[in-house]
């Protein structure tokens, strides 16, 4: 009977300009993401009725925030696999400038499967952009003369058109085909990305202290790596901050690592108890002390910098004494 004609209009790439302002958005002086002409209005997901357009728009916003964070936090990017040329498929880890030479200490952060350098999209929409992104944590650490290295295990697919690593979510939402050319050799899984990256950081940092942050899925990646390589690290390990830890005892094999965790790590979970309150009500199998992250996990990302510094201070004191 009737067959739909091929749509004559080829899908044009939508151009959202080069900055947030081009998208009628701004980051205000007090660091909120707001509409350009109405500084009190939040970003809206429904830009048009066209769902696909909204998705593209949303990712464009995230991209701009990513660039903004990168710029303001003065992070350098290290490509993984190492030594890849800019046009070869690679993913990134992000580090503050002096990470190799800094002896005071280094903080290693493994993000969840969220957008690179952004903790929580929800906070980004509503709260302080510095805290919704990693900017606040970096500022606080740098102030204490600590270096920071950030792992973003979500962006492991190569977008050839712009030579840039992307999240799977980006590919599927934009209707892009995942081909062999999108696969980044040697870092096909979050596990291998973390493992290559951490090996590199470990062997190139002169620091005597390493502190760790593992957020949600990142907590599992972190634990799996440390459990395997604990012998190498045990001398340098400092504080371990976990957010909604996903690992359970059965998965961990090194008893030394497990006992270190119980001793030094803290796990933050959403709960109705006041934020940063030690909780006895929820016992995890792992035996790591649980603290309240506030009602929602997003709330905790506002505090993450403060909590981390407290833990580091505590660790420094105990190791001195």
């Amino acid at each position, binding site marked *: *009977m*009737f*067959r*739909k*004609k091929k749509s004559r209009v080829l899908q044009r790439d939508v151009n959202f300009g080069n900055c947030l302002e081009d998208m009628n958005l701004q980051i205000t002086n007090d660091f909120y993401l707001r509409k350009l002409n109405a500084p009190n209005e939040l970003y809206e997901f429904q830009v048009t009725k066209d769902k696909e357009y909204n998705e593209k728009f949303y990712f464009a916003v995230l991209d701009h925030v990513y660039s903004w964070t990168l710029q303001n936090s003065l992070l350098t990017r290290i490509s993984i696999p190492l030594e890849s040329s800019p046009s070869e498929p690679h993913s990134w880890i992000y580090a503050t400038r002096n990470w190799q030479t800094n002896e005071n200490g280094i903080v290693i952060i493994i993000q969840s499967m969220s957008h690179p350098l952004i903790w929580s999209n929800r906070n980004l929409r509503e709260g302080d952009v510095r805290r919704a992104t990693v900017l606040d944590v970096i500022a606080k650490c740098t102030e204490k003369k600590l270096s920071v290295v950030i792992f973003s295990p979500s962006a492991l697919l190569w977008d050839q058109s712009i030579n840039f690593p992307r999240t799977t979510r980006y590919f599927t939402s934009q*209707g892009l*085909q995942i*081909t*062999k*050319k999108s696969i980044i050799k040697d870092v096909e899984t979050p596990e291998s990305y973390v493992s290559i990256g951490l090996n590199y950081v470990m062997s190139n940092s002169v620091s005597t202290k390493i502190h760790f942050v593992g957020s949600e899925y990142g907590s599992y990646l972190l634990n799996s790596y440390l459990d395997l390589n604990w012998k190498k690290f045990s001398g340098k390990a400092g504080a371990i901050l976990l957010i909604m830890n996903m690992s359970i005892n059965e998965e961990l094999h090194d008893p030394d690592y497990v006992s270190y965790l119980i001793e030094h790590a803290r796990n933050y979970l959403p709960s109705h108890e006041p934020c940063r309150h030690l909780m006895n009500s929820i016992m995890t199998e792992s035996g790591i002390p649980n603290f309240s992250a506030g009602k929602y996990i997003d709330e905790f990302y506002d505090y993450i910098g403060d909590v981390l510094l407290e833990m580091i201070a505590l660790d420094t004191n105990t190791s001195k004494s």
Partner: protein
Amino acid sequence: MAEGDFKNDSTGCIGDSVEFTTFKKRTGKSLGNRRKKRGLSGWEPYFQEPELTAEEKLENETLYSRNIPLTVRMERFIQRYRSRRKWSDPTRIRLFTMYLDLGGVSTGQKQFTGGTDINNDAKAREVSAQTTTDYIEYDILDEYDIDFKWVAGVFLSSHILYNAGLTKEEDLQIACQIVRNFLLSVLHNNVAPEFEDNIRDACLLAEQAETELISNKRLSTKLPGRLQRALASIHVDNYKGLWDKSQSDRTSDSSVNFIESNNTKFMPNDELFEPDGISRFSTQQARDYIQRTLGPRYLTGKVVEQEYLTVKLVSKTLLNFSNQSLCKAVFIVWDPPGSKYSQDTNKERLEVILESDLLNNTVDGTHLEGSFTFLDNGLTILDTVLAVLPTFYEEVKDE
């Protein structure tokens, strides 16, 4: 009607003899009756509609006159077609509606009654008029082309596989027959003479589809076949050692024992998971079988690559092995028309060794989607089949 009747006509209305013959009788009914009288449902595989009477021909000429747009003719025809067949089988209704929908004909649900019960006493004629709810947007041709063959092809390949999820042979048969039956009736009633060739092609396709889909379905249940399964059990991660005895304890929570009377207690027992050396191989069985058929050379080998590919069968050649009837099936990588992306692979041609009787009823040009594992010794293993697709397989972008 005799002209004399007009003498007493006090009503102020008048007759028009030509129009009168057109609308006097609902010959559609009588056709349906003739079908019923012959004791036929209209779905018999070799059902033939009775020759049109002169009267019916005349009626069709008016209904489906060439100067009436095809959309209107089709809409009219579908109404009549629906009333002339027996629709007691829910699967058939569902498939016919899906087919029409793919072809740009929308079928309405029962009309919105706002909670009022449908008038039960409506006359039968009115009821049939009430339930005819297929319609074609009058400006459909601004965005659509007319192509009966394409609709039949897409419907009988990707549509019934993925959208309708047809798995049973009899359902596949129903799907092909409904399309063929419908198209034959379009031809029979001369609804769209200007597209006759296209419709004939579509008919032939539906006929061919019936044979192909049934054989595809049978192949689906047999593939990848004994040899490939054995090879997979040795070389492919997903299947390595899968059917070897496991130590896991399958008894359920013993703390809870309450039993339903007259209900046989059922536990998945070991028998359910027994390797049979035909479709399930323990490692040992697999080694023995490969040793016997291909020889020891293929017991070793390193996996170089694994890819999911959609391919087309181009040839099968019998191989000379002492005790086993094997054949070499040659496939080429093939992108289905209408698929969103082309496949990302550097492979072009694949050779797989299969039991020759597997492909007995499979025509060249049949397509497969499968997981292929390539060994460093040149062997290609077809370890998993995702779908067996007919020669005319086609997809629609952006469903």
